[in-house]
C-alpha cells in the first residue's frame, strides 16, 4: 500500500476538479429530468474551444467563458430537441457526442501540442498554513476553489432551498409539479443549459489546468467517466464529488504502483465502469431497496433511484 500524504490528497483534489464540474453539472441536469448524454463530446469541444480562445486572446478567463458557452449551446440543443420536439434524448445526445468529438478534432487542428496559457495557483494567505487542511483546501488555483464551492452550494441549493425542491419535483413528478404551478419545461431549459455550462467549465479545466494544452481526443472518455460517476453518486452532488475523488485516488495509486505493476495504469481508467455497474446492481437488489426504504441513514447511503421522470418529456394534454 503506497503512503497517502497530505500532498497526495491535495493533488487528488486538484486533479479531480474538472470531473467535479462535469459531474455536478450533469447531476443538476438529470435532477431536472433531462439526460444530456453528449458529455464526452461537449467536454472535448469545450476543452478545445477554451484552449483556443485562451491561446488567441491570452486570457484564461475568456477561455473558460467560451468553453461554458459552447457546452451550454450543445445542452440547449438537447433541451430543445427533447422539450419542444419530444425527440429521444439518448438519440440526440449520442449524435452530439460523436459530433462534438469530431468537431473538436477538426477545428482544433491548429492548436495541437502548442504551449498556451494555463491557470496559475492562488494561495490563500494564513489559511493555507493550517496543517493538513491548508495545503488541500487553501493552496490551489481558483478553479479548484470553485469546484469545492460548487459542491457545497449545489448541495445546499438542491436540498435546502425552495427552488432546489422545485428542481427535484420537476425531475421526479413533473405532472404534480405542474399542477402546483411550477413551470416545468422552463425550469428544464434553465437547468439543462446551466448543467451544460458547468460541463464546459469542466472541459476547460482540463485544457487550461489539469491537462493543459490540446491534442486530438485530448480528454476522450472523461465524459463517459463523468456520466458513470453521476450514477455511482446516486444523483447526489456530494456523493458524486466523492466519486470523482475516489477516481482521482485510483489514478494516483496507479501511478505509484506503476513500477511494480506496469500494466495496471493502462487498465485503471476502466475501473469506474465496473464500479458503476456494481453500484447499479446493488442498489436494485430487493434486499437493499427494502433496507433503504426502512432506514434513513442507509437510505441516504444507498439511495440509487434515478429521478422518476428522467429522460421523459413532459407536456400538457
Amino acid at each position, binding site marked *: 500500500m503506497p503512503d497517502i500524504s497530505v500532498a497526495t490528497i491535495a493533488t487528488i483534489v486538484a486533479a479531480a476538479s474538472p470531473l467535479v464540474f462535469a459531474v455536478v453539472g450533469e447531476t443538476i441536469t438529470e435532477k431536472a429530468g433531462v439526460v444530456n448524454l453528449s458529455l464526452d463530446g461537449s467536454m472535448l469541444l469545450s476543452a478545445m474551444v477554451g484552449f483556443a480562445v485562451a491561446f488567441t486572446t491570452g486570457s484564461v478567463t475568456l477561455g473558460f467563458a467560451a468553453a461554458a458557452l459552447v457546452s451550454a449551446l450543445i445542452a440547449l440543443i438537447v433541451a430543445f430537441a427533447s422539450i419542444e420536439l419530444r425527440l429521444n434524448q439518448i438519440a440526440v445526445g449520442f449524435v452530439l457526442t460523436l459530433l462534438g468529438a469530431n468537431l473538436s*478534432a477538426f477545428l482544433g487542428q491548429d492548436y495541437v501540442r502548442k504551449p498556451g496559457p494555463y491557470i496559475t495557483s492562488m494561495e490563500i494567505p494564513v489559511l493555507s498554513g493550517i496543517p493538513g487542511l491548508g495545503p488541500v483546501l487553501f493552496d490551489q488555483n481558483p478553479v479548484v476553489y470553485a469546484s469545492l464551492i460548487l459542491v457545497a452550494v449545489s448541495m445546499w441549493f438542491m436540498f435546502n432551498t425552495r427552488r432546489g425542491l422545485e428542481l427535484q419535483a420537476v425531475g421526479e413528478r413533473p405532472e404534480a409539479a405542474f399542477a402546483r404551478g411550477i413551470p416545468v419545461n422552463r425550469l428544464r431549459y434553465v437547468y439543462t443549459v446551466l448543467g451544460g455550462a458547468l460541463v464546459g467549465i469542466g472541459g476547460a479545466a482540463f485544457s487550461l489546468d489539469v491537462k493543459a494544452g490540446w491534442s486530438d481526443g485530448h480528454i476522450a472518455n472523461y465524459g*463517459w467517466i463523468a456520466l458513470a460517476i453521476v450514477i455511482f453518486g446516486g444523483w447526489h452532488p456530494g456523493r458524486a464529488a466523492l466519486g470523482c475523488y475516489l477516481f482521482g485516488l485510483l489514478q494516483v495509486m496507479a501511478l505509484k504502483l506503476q513500477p511494480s505493476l506496469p500494466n495496471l495504469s493502462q487498465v485503471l481508467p476502466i475501473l469506474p*465502469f465496473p464500479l458503476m455497474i456494481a453500484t447499479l446492481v446493488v442498489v436494485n437488489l430487493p434486499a437493499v431497496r427494502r433496507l433503504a426504504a426502512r432506514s434513513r441513514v442507509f437510505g441516504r447511503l444507498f439511495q440509487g433511484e434515478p429521478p422518476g421522470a428522467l429522460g421523459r418529456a413532459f407536456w400538457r394534454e
Partner: protein
Amino acid sequence: MNRALEALRAATPRLLAVPVALAVGLVLLWVADAPPLETVRHLLQGSLGGQQRIGDTLMVWAPLALACAALILTFTAGLWNIGVEGQIIAGAIAASWVARELSAPPAVVLSAMLAAGALGGGAWAGLLGVLNVRGGVHEIFGGLGLTFVATGAVIYLVLGPWKRPGIASTSGTEPFDAAAWFPTLGALRVSPLAVGLGVLAVVAVYLVLRGTRFGLRLRATGQGRAAAARLGIPTDRYLMYAFLLSGAIAGVAGAVLVGAQHHKLVPSVSGGYGFLGILVVLLAGFRMAWAAPIALFFAMIASGGVQLQLRLDLHSSLGGVFQGVLVLSVLLAGGWQALRARRREAAARA
C-alpha cells in the same frame, strides 16, 4: 399516385435535412480552405475509383453492416444496445484466441474464428442482458460500462499475455498465421467472405423481422412491454433473445475485423464501428432496408476520406463531422415534422 405524393410530402422535411448537412459540409471545407468540387471528386475517386478502392469501401461496409444488423434487432425490441461496440470487441478477442491457438486447415480455422466471434459477442451481450433483465441495470450504462471493460481487456491482452515476444507495444499482437487470414479476391484486399457475411446478416435480419412470428413478437415487446406481456409473450425471454442474437452478429463483425482487416489483435480493434452503426441506424429510422445502403454511403465517406487526407491534407475527422451533422439534422427535421403534425391536429380539434 395520391399515396406517393403523400409519402413525398411526409418525407420532405427529412429530405431537406440533407442540403442542410451539405451546407454545413461546405462551410467546413471553407474553414479548412479546401475546394469543394475537388473534395467531392477525391472522395468519389477514393471510394469508388477502381476495383481496389471499391473493395476497400466494401471492407468498411461489411463490419458496419453487421453492426447495423445487430443494432436493429435490439432496437426492434426497444433496447438501446450502445454496448454493441463492446460486443464487437469481445468477438474480436474470442476470434483472436482461436486464431492464435488453433492450427488446422484454413477452412476449419476460419469457421472456428467466426463461431468464437459469435460466442464471444453473444456472451458479452448476454451478460448485459442479465444485468438489464434480471438486475434492473439500464442497458445504455451497462452497455457502455461493458464496452470499456472489453477495451481494457484488449489493452491488457495486447500489452500483457499476448504481447509480441520481447516487446510489449500498442501496435498489437504478433500477426496471425496465414490460415487465419480471410482469403481475398486475387490481388485485391477485399474478402468475399467478409462481404458475404455482411449481406447475409442484412438479409437475415430483414426477413426475420418482416415475416416471422419471432420478429413480430420482438416488435410487440419493443412497442410496449406490458401490452406484449398481456398478449402472452414472454417478454423477458424475448429481450434476452434480442441481446444474444445482436451480440452474436456483433461478435462476427469483430471476427471479420481481426481476420480480414488487422490480421492481429490491436488495441483499437473496433475503432468505433459500433458507434458509427448507431448513427446509421438512427438515420435509417431503425429499418434494415434503409440501413444497408446508408452504411454503404458512410463506408464511402470513411474510405474516401483517406484520399482527402493524402491529397488535400484534410483532417480525418471531417467525414465524422459531416455524418454527425447529417444525422442530427435528420433527427431534428423529423421532430419538427411531428411537432407540426401535432399542431395541425390540435388546430383541427379546436
